[in-house]
Structures are given as C-alpha cells and as structure tokens.
C-alpha cells in the first residue's frame, strides 16, 4: 500500500512480537497518525477496563506517525505517543519532532503498540524487520543523554534514533516525558511515566525501507504549491528566524504573557527586553535548525553560552545544544522571574535530561514561589523537604535547580510532594500546613498547569478548559483571537467576530472548530505550527492533495476535516467512559475569578463569559450542553456507531 506502513505489536510481559496491516476501513475513517493511534487506544480499551490505573501493566503505549510524516511536504514530521495519561488520569497523548518517528516509518511501521510490563528494565530495538527486546539494566538510572549514548554505542550506530526516558520516568513521576533524539520532548500528560511503568527505558529505531509514493510527480507539484504559499505568508520569515521565541515580543504587545505565577500579565519592560527573540539571536544563537525530518521552516535554534552574555551566563558557560522554546521562557523566565536565557536554556536541557514535562515543573516552581512570597512556606519547610533551606524567592535559580533534581530523582520529600502534579502537590502542602493553597495553582482541565495569560483570549481559555488531553494549547491551536485574525473568522463563520480581540463573541464556535481542524492536521503527521496558525495559507485541501499523491487514496479537504473531527470525537468518547462531564471542563480560580490587573485585557476574567461559550462550544460539536456528552445523532453522522454502542452501554452518550 502506497504511503503506509504496518502496525507493530510488542507485548513486554510475554515477549510476543507481531505485525499486521492497518485495516483499509480504518485508514478511510481516521487517516493515520493521531487518528489511528486513537483508534488503537480505543480498541485496546474495549478489551481492557478504561478505569485501570494508568501506571499499571494494563495501560497501552502507542507510538505513531501519520502518512505525510517523513515525506517532503516541507512542513515537518510530528509523531505522537498515545496512552491513558497518568498525569491527569484521562486521555493522554504527547507529540514530538525529532527523528524517531521517521525512522520508525522508514523501517516499515507507522504505529507501534506496546502492552504489558517487562519484569526487568528493557529497551526495544527496531532495525527494519528485526525487532528485539533487549536488556536495559546498564542504562537504567541514567539521564537521557547518557542513556542514549550508551544505547547507540551498544548498537554501534551514532545516528540511531532513540525515544528515551530519564530518571523521572523510571521513578513514575506522573508527568514524566519522553525525549526523542536529538533533544525533542514528548512532554505533556506523562508518556515517560507509561514507559517507566512498563520497565521500558527506550525504543531505538532505524529503517532503510522507506516510504513508497503513488504519484511522485503529483506529490512534488503539491510540495511546490506548499512552498509557494509559505513564501506568500509574511509572518513565515519571522517564524523561520525566531521560531516560538518570537511569541515573547508579540505577547508582550497584546498582554499574553503570564508573569510570576500569572499574578500579572505584563512583564516589566527591562525583563522582556532580555527575553526577546532578538536578544537570543544576537547573543546565543549559532544556527537555525529543523527539529524534524522534512521541515523547511527550521524554527528551532542551536545555541552556545560563551559565559559573558548575561548575568547568569558565567554559571552555564560552555552549554551548547538546542535553544529553549517559548514555553520554557514562559515558565522559567516569566513564571519564576529568571529573565536570563543562559539559565532558561540550562533548565530546558535539565528537564529534557531527567525527562519531565517542563510545563508542569515550570508551573510548580512559580507556585512554590508565590507560597513563599505569601509567607505560607519558609526555610523550615524547605529544609524539611529537601535537606537544604532553599529560599523560593522570585528569580532564585537554586530553587529551580533543586526542584528539577528532586522531582527527577525522587530522593526527598520535595520530589514526593510534586510527583503527581501540581493539584496533588497543593493537597499535600495543604495537609502539611493546614492552609488552603489550591487557589494559587494555575491550571485547567484535569489539573495541567500552563503559563500564558488566557483570560483576555476566550478561544484559548476555552481550549484550555476542554482539551481532550487536559489544559493545553496544542489540541485547538489557532490564532483567531490572539492574532486578531478577522480573515480566518470570516472564512470559517462568515463573520469577523471571532477575530475581534478581547470579546467573547463567537469564541465558543471558534474553539470547537479549531479542535477539529488541528486534529485534521495532526492525523496527517505534519507539524501544526504553520498549518494551524495560518489555516488560510496551508489549507486542508492542499494537504489532502499531497496525501492523495502520496497514497493514491482520494481525499479532499472536507473529508480530511471530517476525519479530524472523528478523531477528536474518539478522544472525547474515551474521556466520557472515564466519567468526565461538563463540570470537568473548567479552569482554575485565578483564571475564572480574578480580573486581569493591567495591560490590554485589563478587567477580563473567564467566569464572565465562560458558561455561555461552553454552551456554544458543545453546540458546535453537536454534543449535549447539559452533560457535555456526545449525542447519538452526532456519532451516527460521523459513522461512529461502534463507538456509540460502547458509550450507550455505559451511559456515556445521550439521545
């Protein structure tokens, strides 16, 4: 079959390894990537009770890359891990660039399904048809860099693609991540924890079979069109140059940054100045670089700390490798108030090496810093927690350093408090101190923390409250209200209102459609950054055209959108089976009740419009407003009667 590989199944309990083709009717319905990952997850949990402990052996770990991943669209290749997420105990998936996904595809496998639990630490080696489960005891206990080097040395290939966990995953930190070579992180929802719970240190892959193409000439024509469209988008040069770091300056202008645990949404100007992309480019960047195969955007950057460029640079002198992303700057730079790229880059690397979601850890430290500022915790507490009287004052790099280490190694009380995420950490601290602290946790659905001002941007706020994998921006990535994109709003809804900033108008619909649209991109396997942020530029028709040339399967943009919607509905259905309902689609107190103190969105808070927008959101999805559950009508229209039957049996769908 052109453009597709097989499904590889590995059971770590029995050691059984088998392959099977992807059923053609499944391809028709879910296309690939996130879609077929979700279908495999759904199949697994029709045989296994979805309410199982996600850290137990009954969970499943699925790795997948969509059909356009590893090909030459110029838009990159983003692979996904899918599983029941241990971080928020609901649907979990996590995305990464890097070379592992493409290596897997070149070896002939689009999806890998790992079940069971090995009785001792192992890693999986995939070398075309040869698939082995190998002893990993020599690599267990090591950070990602050292472990990857060890595995590569052992296999005699310095370029081997490896998806690997650090100590955090081994120690079952619920938000542990998987680092995909070279330094890309499948960060959120706890993929690394699922690896660790299966005694799986890593998956290494190399492939020489490649991907067959139905119509090479047609494919290159589609690529030509993508190149042409990208060039016509004036924002793309900035994205190629600065990647997500460009967001720092843009958010500063629209009041989109979150400062000091989101108590503020404007960062002092002298601090913003040294966190701008320009500062990084002028002082630390050495090269641009593409995080994944076939990405001509190349929005990532390689950097070097020479030792004199910033106040903290001397401390991190000699540091080289990938630069941070906006998320790292938002968490450590703004959240913890450490406006210093040398330190931010170091923390970025440290999180990737211990293998933990830097979003969650970057939420934990600002939270503790706010508690410190409020006098709720002090040196006596920190001495008791980690043996040292660490001061959690704003800007203290020692506090961040110690927190990352404690969480990764799980060798003290501080690590233990933070092991299962911030909401649980707040409970732990409340029990110890007998003071309520939950109101200082910045989080959305499921408990995931996030550092961005969203109260003035209702589409993003809603996305954070409803995302199938918990509070996050990547499930419904869009620029309509943050970028004031009236043109997208007009094209999608016939009205410019969703593109008008700082108002709730049409934002519920926009959130719903953005989810379906972003998922439609994700099932193809390319990166969402250009495609979802500017859907008028690279539209779904064009992506469908590249898909058809690759696979020979007829598909248009509308059908691709529908497959995206189907996939998102599958994720919703999974969560409904776990008992998630409307009351779970929510945001923390600060976002809901506290008005923004300053900047363009001053005075805005989510509770003023939240319920109305949720109604609008469910309605657009065709789900029941009262419960949030999917309706019979909607699932029938999506040709998902098999899913409907499961839901109806469990009382998790409505008429």
């Amino acid at each position: 079959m052109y453009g597709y590989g097989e499904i590889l199944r590995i059971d770590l309990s029995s050691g059984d390894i088998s392959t099977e083709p992807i059923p053609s009717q499944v391809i028709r319905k879910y296309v690939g990537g996130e879609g077929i990952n979700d279908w495999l997850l759904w199949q697994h949990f029709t045989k296994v009770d979805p309410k199982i402990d996600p850290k137990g052996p009954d969970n499943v770990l699925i790795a997948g890359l969509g059909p356009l991943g590893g090909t030459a669209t110029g838009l990159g290749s983003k692979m996904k891990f899918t599983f029941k997420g241990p971080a928020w105990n609901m649907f979990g998936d996590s995305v990464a660039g890097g070379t592992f996904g493409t290596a897997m595809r070149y070896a002939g496998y689009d999806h890998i399904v790992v079940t069971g639990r090995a009785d001792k630490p192992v890693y999986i080696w995939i070398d075309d048809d040869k698939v082995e489960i190998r002893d990993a005891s020599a690599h267990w206990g090591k950070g990602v860099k050292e472990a990857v080097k060890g595995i590569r040395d052992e296999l005699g290939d310095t370029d081997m693609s490896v998806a690997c966990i650090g100590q955090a995953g081994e120690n079952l930190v619920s938000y542990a991540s998987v680092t995909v070579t070279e330094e890309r992180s499948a960060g959120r929802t706890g993929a690394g924890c699922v690896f660790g719970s299966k005694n799986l240190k890593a998956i290494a892959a190399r492939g020489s079979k490649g991907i067959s193409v139905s119509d090479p000439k047609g494919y290159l024509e589609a690529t030509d069109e993508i190149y042409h469209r990208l060039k016509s988008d004036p924002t793309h040069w900035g994205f190629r140059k600065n990647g997500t770091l460009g967001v720092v300056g843009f958010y500063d202008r629209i009041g989109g940054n979150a400062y000091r645990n989101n108590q503020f949404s404007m960062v002092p100007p002298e601090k913003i100045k040294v966190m701008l992309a320009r500062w990084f480019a002028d002082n630390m960047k050495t090269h641009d670089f593409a995080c994944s195969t076939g990405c001509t955007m190349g929005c990532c950057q390689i950097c070097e700390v020479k030792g004199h460029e910033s106040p903290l640079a001397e401390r991190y002198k000699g540091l080289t490798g990938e630069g941070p992303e906006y998320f790292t700057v938002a968490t450590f730079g703004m959240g913890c108030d450490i406006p210093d790229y040398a330190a931010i880059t170091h923390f970025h690397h440290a999180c990737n090496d211990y293998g933990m979601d830097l979003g969650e850890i970057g939420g934990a430290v600002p939270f503790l810093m706010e508690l410190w500022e409020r006098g709720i915790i002090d040196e006596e507490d920190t001495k008791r927690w980690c043996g040292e009287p660490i001061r959690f004052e704003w800007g203290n790099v020692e506090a961040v350093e110690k927190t990352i280490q404690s969480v990764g190694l799980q060798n003290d009380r501080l690590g233990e408090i933070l092991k299962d995420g911030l909401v649980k950490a707040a409970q732990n601290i409340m029990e110890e101190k007998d003071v309520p602290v939950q109101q200082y946790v910045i989080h959305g659905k499921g408990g995931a923390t996030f550092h961005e001002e969203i109260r003035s941007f209702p589409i993003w706020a809603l996305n954070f409250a409803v995302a199938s994998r918990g509070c996050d921006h990547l499930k419904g990535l869009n620029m309509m209200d943050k970028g004031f994109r009236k043109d997208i709003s007009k094209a999608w809804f016939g009205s410019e209102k969703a593109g008008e900033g700082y108002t709730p108008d049409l934002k519920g619909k926009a959130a719903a459609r953005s989810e379906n649209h972003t998922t439609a991109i994700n099932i193809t396997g390319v990166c969402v950054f250009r495609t979802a942020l500017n859907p008028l530029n690279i539209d779904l028709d064009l992506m469908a055209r590249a898909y058809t040339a690759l696979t020979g399967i007829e598909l248009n943009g509308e059908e691709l959108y529908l497959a995206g919607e189907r996939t998102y509905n599958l994720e919703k259905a999974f969560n409904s089976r776990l008992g998630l309902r409307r009351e779970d689609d929510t945001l923390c107190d600060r976002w809901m009740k506290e008005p923004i103190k300053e900047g363009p969105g001053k005075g805005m808070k989510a509770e003023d419009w939240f319920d109305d927008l949720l109604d609008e959101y469910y309605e657009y999805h065709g789900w029941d407003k009262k419960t949030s559950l999917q309706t019979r009508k909607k699932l029938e229209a999506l040709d998902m009667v098999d899913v409907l039957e499961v839901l109806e049996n469990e009382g998790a769908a409505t008429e």
Partner: protein
Amino acid sequence: MGAKKIFSVDSRLCVGCKQCELVCSLTKTGTFNPHKARIRVTRNQVKGNYVPGICYHCKQPKCQQACPEDALKRDIETGAVVLNESLCSGCRACVVACPFGAVQVDPDGNILKCDLCGGDPTCVKYCSERPENSSPLMANPEGAKALQYVEPHQVTYTRRYAQL
C-alpha cells in the same frame, strides 16, 4: 555561455531538515528513503549542527580514476561525473576512493551517484530558504540557502573542494 555551474555548500545555513535527501530519493527512486539519496546530511555530534554531503564533481574525480569498469564518465553538457549503471559491477572502488564520502551504496548494494539531475539539481531547488541573519555566523541575506548551484566564481564556502 559562462563556465559550467557547480554545487556550492554552506553548512552554516543547513538546518538539517533533510528535505534534500527526501526529494533526491523521490526523484531517483519514486520513494522517500534517505538510504537511497545521492546526497547525505550528517550531524556534527559535537556542535550539533548539520552538514550536507554532496558530490563535488571534482575536476580530477578519484571515483572515476578508481573505477575498473570505466563506468564513470563526465557529462559534457552539465559537467557532472555520471555513473553508467549498466557498466557498474558494484565493486565499490569508487565508494572507497571518494575523499568526501559522496558516493553511497543503497541497502540493496546499488551504487548511488549524483548526476546533477541533468543540470537542474532537485535538492538545490527544495533546500530551505533562510530568513535574513538566520546564521549569525555569516549574517546571511534573506533567501540564502545551504545548497546552491552556481557558476564557479560565485562559490564561496566550498571553493577549496571544488578545485580538487
């Protein structure tokens, strides 16, 4: 007509996307498979940056000199050193002889040799265009690429190779 065009490579601008490998294998084999590409991008393990490895179609090609079957010939039109596959015995003398590691062997044992796509190299066409100052090391102008196909006097970074 000016001198024949040749490859120019500037690794400071290479983002490691490997789009060149993908379009090369697509054009030559109808598949996406870096193992079948005539161009190879390698990672500098120390610095973390990438370097495109191309055939320089040298003035005095070591591969041609080493070939016992006389299967490598210069194309008068393009200046490319081209492999005549029907004469090739697959002995790999050219692979060993090339000082740049630019002659490759695919997983089936076939010799892979760049032929400049008949004078319009596909890899150059799809190489990522970089924004202004994308590489602070060279302060590049907007639209600069790691791979260029230019007249010899326009070659900058790889000049010393091209003279071989």
